[in-house]
């Protein structure tokens, strides 16, 4: 079984056991919604990619479901500032993905680890530095890889190099999905560790009576 599938199954188990509860809270999701998204990524990944004309196609599980999730998170983001951060993190992650492709060696045997995981790590770091947001991390992880693939296709087209663009074509095992989940996990782990180490409690958002409320251990205030 591939590491990608192991990662997704591990995330599902974590959700089932309620461990990622606070991460899901911050991503405006409940357990069932999160499991539904993971199931949709799995199932959609097994379906053939949808041709969009020319040599461009898009996979349901590998690109459409994660993209839809990004739209949902973008709309649900607490503030306009957080939305801007998500956009900026996505653009910077895309640039980082393109740059990693150029700067890192082109043979996998030269890499200390699988490059597919490096994109998620980059997205997690960029998004965390921009605003310690799990939402930003997921959006940056997913959109960073998607934008980088689209940008590469455009660069190829301009240079007269053959263009083949299959967005999220590897389904649940695609770098788009892996990057999104790794970015969130990294952001959550680093965030929790830093907050524990510094002794500062987390400030997280919850939905109360249909309105978003930011809570800090016993205190709740409206935005």
């Amino acid at each position, binding site marked *: *079984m591939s590491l990608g599938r192991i990662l997704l199954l591990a995330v599902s188990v974590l959700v089932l*056991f309620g*461990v990622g509860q606070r991460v899901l809270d911050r991503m405006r999701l409940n357990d069932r919604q999160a499991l539904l998204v993971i199931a949709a990524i799995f199932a959609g990944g097994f379906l*053939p*990619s949808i041709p969009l004309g020319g040599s461009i196609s898009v996979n349901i599980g590998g690109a459409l479901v994660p993209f839809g999730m990004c739209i949902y998170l973008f709309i649900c983001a607490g503030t306009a500032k957080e939305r801007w951060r998500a956009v900026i993190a996505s653009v910077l992650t895309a*640039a980082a993905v393109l740059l990693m*492709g150029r700067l890192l060696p082109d043979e996998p045997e030269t890499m200390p680890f699988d490059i597919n995981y490096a994109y998620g790590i980059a997205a997690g770091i960029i998004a965390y530095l921009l605003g310690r947001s799990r939402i930003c991390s997921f959006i940056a992880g997913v959109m960073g890889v998607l934008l980088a693939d689209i940008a590469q296709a455009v660069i190829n087209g301009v240079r007269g*190099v053959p*263009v083949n663009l299959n967005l999220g074509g590897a389904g649940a095992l695609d*770098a788009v999905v892996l990057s999104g989940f790794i970015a969130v996990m990294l952001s959550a782990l680093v965030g929790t560790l830093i907050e524990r180490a510094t002794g500062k409690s987390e400030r997280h958002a919850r939905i109360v009576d249909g309105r978003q409320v930011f809570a800090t251990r016993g205190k709740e205030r409206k935005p």
Partner: protein
Amino acid sequence: MKRLWISLMIAALLAASPVSCVHAETEHEVWTLTTQDGQQLTQIAAPVTVGDEYIAQDNRTYRVSAVDEASHRATVQETGQEAAVAQAFFPFVRALAAEKRIGLYCTHSDESYENGDGAYSLEESWAGIHDVAATLKSWLEDKDVTVEFNTDSFLPHDAGAYRRSRAAAMELAKSGPAAIFDIHRDGIPDASEYETEVDGEKVTKVRLLVGRSNPNSAENKQFAVQLKSVADEAYPGLIKDIFIGKGNYNQELMPDSVLLEFGTHTSDKDQVLASTQYMADVINMTVFGGAQGYSQKAQRAQESESQTVPGAVSPPQNSPGTAVRQSAQTETQQRSGSGVWIAIAIIVGLAVVAVVGFGALSGGGFSGLGESMKRFSSEVTGGLFGKKPRE
């Protein structure tokens, strides 16, 4: 808004920087593997790291024990020899695929041959490496094998090439092939390392590459060894060696998945193309238990001759007996079964570590973890078990 414009400008600068315009394959570092007494074993067109494994043409196995970055030399330690028993009993040690289907693709879509294509890298929709894969396909089809050849381009030839070709490998895997091959050529300058003769014909050797950074690594290696074992018996010298290095080469998608290097960029392309005939035979024998040298065209020609020439004999359809096939299937099922149990063990292990670690970190220690578990139990059992969440 200002931040967005700054980030867009940074991204645009990065994308337009000179370093990002390097698209074609660049010259590789060439490393030399030597034994502890200084004997040169082979060259590899990529950095070698401690722990990499090498199976030489004579089936001696080595492990890289030390590397010298300055001289690009790696010292290897002999670890043994591939078991001769496995070769002797081949092809009876693996289950034969029911449907004769193979998948082919070329991750490095620009790879070409200086002696034949005029350049070692061609950024076109059809490069020299596609000719090699297409010829291999036609030879396999001559052996009744259905071949799905994905001719997509995954340019540029950079660190993201395997990410882009992953989609093609996945699409191929969906159609249920018995094996998938990623077709490449090597980048070492010395073409003589790849020169050989098979049945009196000048051909280039084939190197098999296995990524050890993936959960299927053991199965991939076993498949590569099986291919070499068959080739060693049928066409000695055709398979150069097997290198087991870092990376996964998308081989995690299928156990029977190997990267094939047909010659190097300085090899004669005609000799490279000639080697595909023998490699197709090796694949047909290994994966499907086909007869050595079986050719659909040759058989048809012989059949039509047999109608006019009394006493003519058709090529033998060498297929293992039912009992042997069943035992081979059982062995493979056990092999793949162990992989499933390992995967399940990894998942359970990861989950336990994550549950305990994350719970202890973020949920007020182990008591918080317990609360969370009780709440979940209550949710899934409709309040029958566990603790109902406070309203």
